[in-house]
């Protein structure tokens, strides 16, 4: 479903992805962790070409993302992206936020899109917030609208870029709950997060990134019990002690 072959990216002189090789199968849930600046956000942002890569091959859903001639709007419609800062459209209600792309990109009739939007918002626990504007919602509610916005496109892949990092602690769980349900439905997901409880419980594999390299990737039982690399052990000891 997603295949990185020796993928490199530079920001100017800064080598942020150094030869990434990675294969994500349909239905797989991959959690990516690592220190800030390790390139993990950049990694998932390359998948729908929010960042372009300079070297290597990146195939997503059969499309060559590394090829600048590949039109991206069609592929982006198949990939839901959830941002750390939610990025909801502030001038639209929750329902308008989740129906915009289905109506404009998928060309679904408005009424049908709204039916589906209401359904999906109900699924993330926001049936009573359809006509609220983002500023009237809590952070956790906003992030759930953002997830619903992705889901309304009926995507094949969902990408999460630190979805709970901007949330107050008491709101983290309501968002993870939605993501957990999604994983159990068989959605292909890549989640950049430091929520190791979520990784242990939901992920099929956990990857550790540092300095633009994929240091280690393994099923969670193995990843947490017997990390092979010194750097992984060091990172885990720092974030698991509290």
């Amino acid at each position, binding site marked *: 479903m997603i295949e990185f072959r020796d993928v490199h990216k530079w920001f100017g002189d800064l080598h942020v992805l150094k030869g990434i090789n990675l294969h994500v199968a349909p239905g797989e849930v991959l959690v990516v962790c690592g220190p800030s600046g390790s390139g993990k956000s950049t990694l998932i942002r390359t998948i729908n070409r929010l960042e372009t890569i300079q070297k290597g091959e990146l195939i997503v859903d059969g499309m060559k993302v590394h090829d600048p001639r590949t039109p991206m709007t069609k592929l*982006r419609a198949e990939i839901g*992206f959830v*941002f750390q800062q939610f*990025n909801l*459209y502030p001038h639209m209600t929750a329902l308008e936020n989740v129906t915009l*792309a289905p109506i*404009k*990109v998928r060309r679904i009739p408005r009424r049908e899109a709204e039916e589906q939007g209401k359904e999906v918002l109900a699924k993330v626990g926001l049936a009573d917030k359809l006509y609220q504007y983002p500023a009237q919602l809590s952070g956790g509610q906003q992030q759930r609208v953002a997830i619903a916005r*992705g889901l309304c*496109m009926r995507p094949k892949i969902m990408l999460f870029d630190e979805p709970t990092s901007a949330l107050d602690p008491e709101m983290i769980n309501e968002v993870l709950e939605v993501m957990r349900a999604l994983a159990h439905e068989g959605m292909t997901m890549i989640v950049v997060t430091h929520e190791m409880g979520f990784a242990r419980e939901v992920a099929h594999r956990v990857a550790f990134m540092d300095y633009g390299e994929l240091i280690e990737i393994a099923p969670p039982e193995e990843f947490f019990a017997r990390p092979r690399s010194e750097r992984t052990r060091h990172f885990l000891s720092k974030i698991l002690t509290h």
Partner: protein
Amino acid sequence: MWGVYLEQLLQSLPFFLQGLWMTIAVSGLSLMAGTAVGFLWGILRSSRRRVAKALIGAWVDVIRGTPFLVQIFVLFFILPEFGVHLEAFPAAVLALSNLAACFICEIVSAGIESVPHGQREAAVASGLNGYQQLRHVILPQALRVMLPPLVGQYVLLIKDSSVVSAIGVVDVTRVGWLTVQRIPQGILVFGLVGLLYFAICYPLIQLSNALEKRLGRSARR
């Protein structure tokens, strides 16, 4: 003695209204054309099209850095040397439209740039094409920032339109010049001229203030 002048002035009122109509025609046409072109330039200027950006940026700087009176003289007196002859009215509308476009371009691109980058990313990520991103996500948010200064700019441009009297367009200001030669009471004549400008501009000033309050409030919603 003022009574006599006042009566004379009252008799030339139709002349003033004609001038007022000309002022409204010149500024109305120019504001419409200037808004359309200014939006286009502003959008291009905040896009990634490098050549268009550089050209528009340079042109806006030239126009902002030279007096409107000089621009209109160039258009009206110097272009004919190169075989381009324009009547006073189209020359006036063209010059003022261009001036309007330049100022509005700045307002539009500042408005677009005020929209947080994450908004465009969200729109891109959901598969919207460039036009759809602009139409449904960026411009509605930019418009809130743009509207009060835009209406404020309209007021400035309507007042700047008085410069077109210099090439013989008979607008309110020109009517003032012509009238004061018959009625030597500058304070009366130009008082009336000022009053007529004020009558057009004041509602716009009020509108700009109201928009500022209203949009400021909804932005905090």
